[in-house]
């Protein structure tokens, strides 16, 4: 206390009566006491963040950057390599297999987005209210989401086998002509993959839309019903517009997920028959780890990364429009 008074006198402060000077003097010491605390917290926060930043940059971003460098080489995964410029990219777009894989990737992603969102929204609307068993139904529909994609794919592979349960059922119903080699027929193979991935992930979009529907006031629907709007009209003119932000998020997330489908394709068809279900992701795996073309595989991986990045940018753009 004495030392503070002495400090105040020596600094020119005359005490509380001279409020301006005292205020200035009072702010000076207070500012000096606050600054070290704020800096301490900032430094402490950085120490918590640094390990995560180091790991993320070191493993993810450095790995991506290193892989991107190899995209311009002819590296075989062992020994020396040469820089070949954009030869790998030229070869990729000249390769019928790569072009086919690109189309398959876009096709699978489009089907995945449309079907998971439409069916997921339908399930969400159905299980939003009214049904007493809706909570049990939500759990059952969501359960496949938490299963391993590989395990799911192998189970469905068994179901789709030429002498598997599905064909057995079809034959028992007298539908022998429908009992085809689902995974070996180029006209059905990619659709079987669509069925499996949609089946496994429809619960995720359902949950997203349920969260969105929770924010739709039931009074608005009731008011529209009072005004004579049909169920369809209430949905398309009241509920759906209010769900727009949820639709944007769900569709953007499923688009990114759809572009990356890998496990199901690898387990169900391996990319066959005759590349009919080959995607960019499976082609990257095949070229890199089976054919040991690390340079070419890295180039394909870079192409896929750019494709997914464009999708992510679309998501950000749509979100900004929502905010506006």
């Amino acid at each position, binding site marked *: 206390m004495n030392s503070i008074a002495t400090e105040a006198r020596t600094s020119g402060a005359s005490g509380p009566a001279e409020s301006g000077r005292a205020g200035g003097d009072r702010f000076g010491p207070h500012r000096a006491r606050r600054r070290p605390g704020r800096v301490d917290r900032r430094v402490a926060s950085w120490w918590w963040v640094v390990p995560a930043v180091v790991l993320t940059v070191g493993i993810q971003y450095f790995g991506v950057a290193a892989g991107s460098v190899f995209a311009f080489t002819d590296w075989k*995964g*062992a020994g020396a390599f040469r820089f070949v410029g954009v030869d790998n990219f030229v070869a990729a777009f000249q390769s019928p297999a790569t072009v086919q894989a690109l189309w398959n990737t876009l096709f699978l992603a489009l089907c995945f987005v449309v079907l998971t969102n439409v069916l997921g929204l339908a399930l969400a609307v159905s299980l939003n209210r009214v049904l007493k068993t809706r909570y049990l139904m939500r759990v059952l529909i969501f359960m496949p989401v938490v299963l391993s994609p590989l395990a799911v794919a192998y189970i469905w592979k068994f179901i789709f086998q030429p002498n598997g349960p599905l064909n057995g059922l079809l034959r028992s119903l007298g539908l022998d002509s429908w009992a*085809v080699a689902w995974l070996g027929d180029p006209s059905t193979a990619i659709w079987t993959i669509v069925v499996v991935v949609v089946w496994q992930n429809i619960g995720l979009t359902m949950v997203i839309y349920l969260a969105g529907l929770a924010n739709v006031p039931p009074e608005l629907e009731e008011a529209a019903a009072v005004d004579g709007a049909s169920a369809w009209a209430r949905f398309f003119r009241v509920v759906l517009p209010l769900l727009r932000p949820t639709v944007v998020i769900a569709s953007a997330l499923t688009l990114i997920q759809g572009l990356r489908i890998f496990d199901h394709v690898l387990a169900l068809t391996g990319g066959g028959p*005759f590349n009919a279900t080959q995607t960019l992701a499976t082609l990257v795996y095949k070229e890199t780890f089976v054919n040991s*073309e690390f340079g070419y595989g890295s180039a394909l991986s870079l192409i896929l990364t750019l494709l997914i990045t464009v999708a992510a940018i679309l998501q950000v753009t749509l979100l900004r429009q929502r905010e506006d």
Partner: protein
Amino acid sequence: MMQQHPPSRKPRTAQLAVLSLAAAFALAGCSAGSDASSNDGPVTITLATETRFGETSAYEEIITAFNESNDQGITVELQEIPTESYSQTIRTQFQAGNAPDIIWGSPGSGSNNALGTFADAGQLADLSDEEWASASIPASSDELYYDDGVLSAVPVDVAPISQVINVTGYGGAGISPATTYDEVLEQCADVRSQGLTSLFGVAGAQTSNTGLLALELAASKVYAADPDWNEQRAAGDVTFADSDGWRATLESVLDLNEAGCFQPGVEGGSPETVTPEFTVGKILSIFAPAGIAANLAELAPDAEISVAAFPGESADDTFLFASPSNALAINAASAHVDAAKTLLEFWMEPENLDAFAEISGNVSLATVLNGTPVSERFANLETYLTDPDRNAPLPNLVWPNTEVYDALGVGVQGLLTGQATVDQVLESMDATWQG
């Protein structure tokens, strides 16, 4: 109020930096490779191989015998790596500098586990001056194992690539393994008429099996008449597209499919769908390495499982691929190259080669090198195994890159589904040939 002393950040930062660097050096010093002991005294070396069917590894038997018998204090540890990730794991270990002392692989450069890739990168020890190594290479496999005169791996057995047949099923159908190609086509119809599934089972969804099917057909149609076809292709004197033999090979795939030789839905077939029907005799034969006959016999205790060569146009045209595809090589950066060589030299002794083949299910290398009697289980193949003009290594092993065999396997898929023509498949094989 307690006075807060500003933390001495700089000294603390320095301490943490030093600790981090020390940890980094400690981690970098860790090695999963061989024990870095001195050259004198006991040494431990590692041998890596792929796992097979989860049973006792044939490699472990020889390793145990070596560990117990050698008086140089050398201990060998076996590392078993799942087949699907073996190639990538070994490649990563070489890049990281902690690869095993000895690795398994296939000779040449045409397979997924090609040792040629590591040899080209200078990562395998040169065995050219080792007499025991040179003596272990069959004359028909010189091209496979020597690259510009350098030998960097040794075979450990010989794997016949043949038909694996259900003898009991054949007997039940009243037929014996065909000796001519026309007889095969007749049997296909006969088997179907008896209500069985098919004469042959093919995992059409697996390009490795469709590729093997094509190679077994090519054995008689290409390499019986032209054993040096691969050399001609490497020299650019021939191509797949202008080869009558290869054209006939792929046309045979179409013929066999149209004749009902393959199971219904072959394009979607897999080992999981074919094996159950094979073990109960509904499918009588599969295209596979002969070595798995013993494994299939365990799955079919009520049936006799054996092997047979796929016939050519005539019995005289029949040709067999008997491939020394399992090889061991030494890591050039190993700290115990001499100890590794000691192990391999032990392995090349005839009695150890015989013992290894007995467990691996393949033909002993000693049989091919020294003309010792063929094992009873390969009695059907003795004619081809003992005549150097009737057998050769798998041709894809000497192809310059794996994409060629992949193009063949994928192409056969396309033939089965109607997505590709013979010309397209042959052209794709030429297009993927590097060099």
